[in-house]
């Protein structure tokens, strides 16, 4: 493993519910090496999704430092953070979060609209990405015309299309049957092994976590001792 691509130090996060402050993460400190495949596990309410959101830059901590790819993202303003996300983070959501009125091709193309690529270049990238996830023959299909597993593969293609620094996956197999789930996990494994993608995945499924190299356990907002999963 190489230099850390994610450096987390004394991260604290809480939410306000009515007049009450609810602590979610308490002094989280750990690093993620470039090319690592990390699973964040823990019971419901342990703060694993919150931690993932902070790493992905879609939420801000109350205190602590969080560097991703050498950038202190806690110091970025909203607009800068949005730009940073578009270049450095690939998202894979539990419920795919595809645009229902866009085809598979157009959904994957979305992140590239924020780049300077020409239309022809975007076409080439998208075609290549969809071929990589095995959906070259489904490019013109809308999400409603695809199975759950196919939709998640479109989401993966969208996540990798801009060659991001990290891939964040929040329960990527949570809405899939066992066969489709296995396909997705294999695909993530492929992205990690062959393309060297750094993957951070939240899961409550030990089988899914078993695909990761490193498993970090959270409980009541605190990090328990991590261990490597089966590579």
């Amino acid at each position, binding site marked *: 493993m190489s230099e850390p691509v994610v450096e987390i130090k004394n991260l604290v996060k809480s939410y306000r519910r009515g007049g009450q402050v609810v602590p979610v993460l308490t002094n989280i400190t750990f690093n993620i090496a470039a090319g690592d495949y990390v699973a964040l596990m823990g019971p419901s309410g342990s703060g694993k999704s919150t931690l993932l*959101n902070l790493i992905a830059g879609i939420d801000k901590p109350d205190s602590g430092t969080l560097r991703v790819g050498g950038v202190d993202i806690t110091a970025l303003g909203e607009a800068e953070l*949005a730009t940073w*996300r578009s270049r450095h983070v690939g998202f894979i959501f539990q419920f795919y979060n595809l645009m229902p*009125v866009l085809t598979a091709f157009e959904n994957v193309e979305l992140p590239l609209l924020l780049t300077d690529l020409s239309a022809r270049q975007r076409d080439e990238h998208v075609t290549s990405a969809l071929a990589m996830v095995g959906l070259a023959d489904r490019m013109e299909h809308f999400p409603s015309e695809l199975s759950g597993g196919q939709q998640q593969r479109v989401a993966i293609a969208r996540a990798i299309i801009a060659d991001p620094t990290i891939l964040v996956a929040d329960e990527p197999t949570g809405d899939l049957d066992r066969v489709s789930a296995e396909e997705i996990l294999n695909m993530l494994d492929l992205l990690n092994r062959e393309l060297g993608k750094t993957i951070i995945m939240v899961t409550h499924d030990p089988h899914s976590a078993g695909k990761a190299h490193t498993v970090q356990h959270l409980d009541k907002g605190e990090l328990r001792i991590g261990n490597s999963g089966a590579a």
Partner: protein
Amino acid sequence: MYYLKLIVRNALRHKLRTGLTVLGIVVAILAFGLLRTVVDAWYHGSEAASNTRMVTRNSISLVFSLPLTYSAKIRQIDGVKAVSHANWFGGVYVTEKNFFPQFAVQGSTYFDLYPEFIVPPEQMREFQRDRKGALVGRKLVDTYGFKIGDQVSLRGTIFPGNWEFVVRGIYDGADSKTDTSQFFFQWDYLNETMKKTAPRRANSVGVYIISLASADRAAEVAAAVDHEFKNSLAETLTETEQAFQLGFVSMTEAIVVAIKIVSFLVIFIIMAVMANTMAMTVRERMAEYATLKALGFGPGHLALLIFGESLAIAGFGAAIGIALTFPVAEKFGTAMGSLFPVFFVTPETLYMQVAAGLIVGAVAAFVPCVRAARIRIVDGLRSVG
């Protein structure tokens, strides 16, 4: 093009909702255009007025007449180029619902003061030659089928009796603002009949029409004419033709104001409907907007999508509403007959309709756009439409 594609597809996502909203906008913009056209029609008389024409009437009320002898005195006032006279006749053609303006005019001079009434010379000659001749406007021809040579009977109300006329000419308007719903006949016919049937009412004129040598001298000439007849039995009030026409409008100003208010209320109501549509739409798609924000799209992109969709729906509805305004206004104008002799959709009304459509679309999108821009990504991703 990508964003346009997304906007159009989103607008068509809920076809029933979008269709009903568009229908509402069509009706609202159409109603707005029609009401504004009615307001314009109310003022057409004053807008078509010439700035070199003035009207002299009895200062007490238009109901009271002026002596025929005033004509020669008015003609001699400095600044007066020509003078004619006319009486409102107010007769009934067949039934009361067939209303159109009827004037007894000095045939030899009246039409020199109204160059916007276009009459073929030979027809004008026949009209002036025949004491019972009548000149009818093109709109009356289209409505009642009058032809040259037709005998027309009017039942007098202000001037009792059955009055027989022969159509000797048909006049057209120089432009679309000219009223071609009027019926003109010889003042001499009226006066000679009054001498026999009601001598005390003979040699009485309803109004004098004055042609000015220069429009700049309107105030001066008006003062001079009224001064000439001050302290007489029939004092005069002389005003520009536009002021004279506006006097009629002011009698019904409350109605005009009410119509204007209703026209804007219609737009306000559809704005509320459209705002509700966009609020529901954005609420349902909050997870999608949160996803776009997560991917790096900023508030500007979201605004483009939301405003774009709102303006597309409102614009489409407005375009149809505007297109329908023309045939509906034409049918309405025809149905109204002489009540609105000049009735057409003006460019200003079109601009107002376009502006109304744009404002509806923009205002409806504003609050939903702000909500989408402000929502925290994590909250948006959790939302269920």
